[in-house]
């Protein structure tokens, strides 16, 4: 069975004010259910590509299709509904430190208006998957770097997204913790979630053996 592309990028250029081109004429397809690593030196355009997919930034030219929707020309008002199908994992976690671990994970469910009962069940399930169920009442500030990253992943997957986009998820973690985080991604991929990870962690690539896309100075290498 031929898998259809869930992400389709064609001739995408991203030019920042000042003329710097982070991406130059990039075209690629990513099949639904696959696991893909984007790699390359810093400044190669990995983060920019993920930002274009999530609609955090817009392409200067070219088309970015995610789940059949054209993100590069999407109306501002439609963007939230795209994001609800994406699980975003950030290098700096972007957790909220004014509330508990549990309240961080439940946030995406409140945004989509889940009932309190459903939300609680799903939030606990997500925390369980990343091994943080016993820390649900803790403040995220008291978690280790690896735990914070796992919390960020739990928040990303709690809405059961079709695609996980992770930007340097293991960059600040020790090798052992990095391995465990990568294993979490693998377990989501095994149940059909498309996983796209930007990383320059060669150990992770060796461990996972995913499809690898190399970016070099804004072009596919």
């Amino acid at each position, binding site marked *: 069975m031929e898998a259809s592309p869930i992400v389709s990028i064609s001739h995408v250029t991203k030019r920042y004010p000042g003329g710097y081109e982070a991406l130059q004429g990039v075209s690629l397809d990513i099949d639904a259910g696959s696991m893909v690593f984007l790699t390359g030196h810093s400044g190669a355009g990995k983060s920019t590509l993920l930002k274009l997919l999530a609609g955090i930034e817009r392409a200067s030219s070219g088309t970015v299709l995610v789940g059949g929707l054209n993100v590069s020309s999407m109306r501002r008002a439609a963007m939230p509904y795209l994001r609800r199908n994406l699980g975003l994992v950030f290098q700096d976690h972007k957790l909220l430190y004014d509330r508990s671990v549990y309240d961080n994970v439940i946030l995406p469910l409140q*945004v989509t208006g889940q009932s309190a009962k459903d939300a609680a069940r799903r939030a606990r399930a997500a925390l369980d998957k990343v091994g943080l169920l016993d820390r649900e009442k803790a403040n995220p500030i008291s978690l280790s770097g690896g735990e914070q990253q796992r919390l960020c992943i739990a928040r990303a997957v709690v809405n059961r997204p079709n695609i996980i986009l992770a930007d340097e998820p293991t960059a600040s973690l020790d090798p052992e913790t990095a391995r465990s985080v990568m294993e979490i991604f693998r377990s989501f991929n095994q149940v059909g979630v498309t996983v796209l990870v930007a990383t320059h962690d060669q150990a992770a690539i060796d461990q996972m053996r995913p499809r690898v896309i190399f970016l070099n100075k804004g072009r596919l290498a």
Partner: protein
Amino acid sequence: MIAWLRHHLYSLDRTTIRLMAAPVSTALNVIVIGVALALPLAGYVLLQNLQSLANGFATQAQLTLFLDRSAGPEDVKSLEDRLGKEKGVMHLRFVPRATALADLARSADISEVVGALRENPLPDAIIVTLKTNDTVGAEILAEKARSFAKVGYVQADSTWTRRLDALIGLGRSALGVLGVLLSFALVAVTVNTIRLQILTQHDEIEVSRLIGATDSYIKRPFFYLGTLLGAFGGLFALALVFAGLGFLNRDVSTLAALYGSTFSLVGLGTSDCLAFLGFSAALGWLGAHLSVSIYLLKTN
């Protein structure tokens, strides 16, 4: 729909918690808004009282027709008939010159002067009382009566009520301007308060956007914040005005008693109070709306 309601409740809950968490700044904001609103509100209440006082003084306009010396009883009769047919006339009273002189002589100060007069210099008079305090109608009737035969001079006693009306009208306009200016101030205060609140919740807004929150989801708690601040400010303004009235009323009733009156200042009715609270809450909402919309546009 249920999700929407659920989030409204959630927003209201979080907003209340936030307001309670910073009681000092909440109180200061409420005071600023309350004082700004109390000024025009107090002016409005005082003007309302002045108006009702003025209405009490002159519920009916009066005209006095002084007759020619040559007017006889038949002339008086025909004048009374003519005036009686005019619309708006409620009551006619004929004051013969002799009665007028006798009335005058009763005033202690000038009884000697009156006694020294060799003949009665006063004319006969007809006092016309109109049904309403319609000063324009009184002027028209006065103009008409001037052309009647045997009428020497017509005095419309409505001039002072017209002046008072004009003064109250001026007061209202001035109050309107003040009200508009202070409403702007209130909106500006809320815009700034909400802006500061947005800055402290910058991370939460950013994360909410990344996980798929719509703009209205992000705005909602701030709408509640602005509306609550406006409503509490309005309540505070009402409290200030009612306290001020209570304070003034002690002096007012002393003054009124000296004039043999039981007049006292009256506050606002329930519906006026509710309308005012609604208005101040709406201004708070408007401030929040401006503030958060500007922020979301800027950060997009």
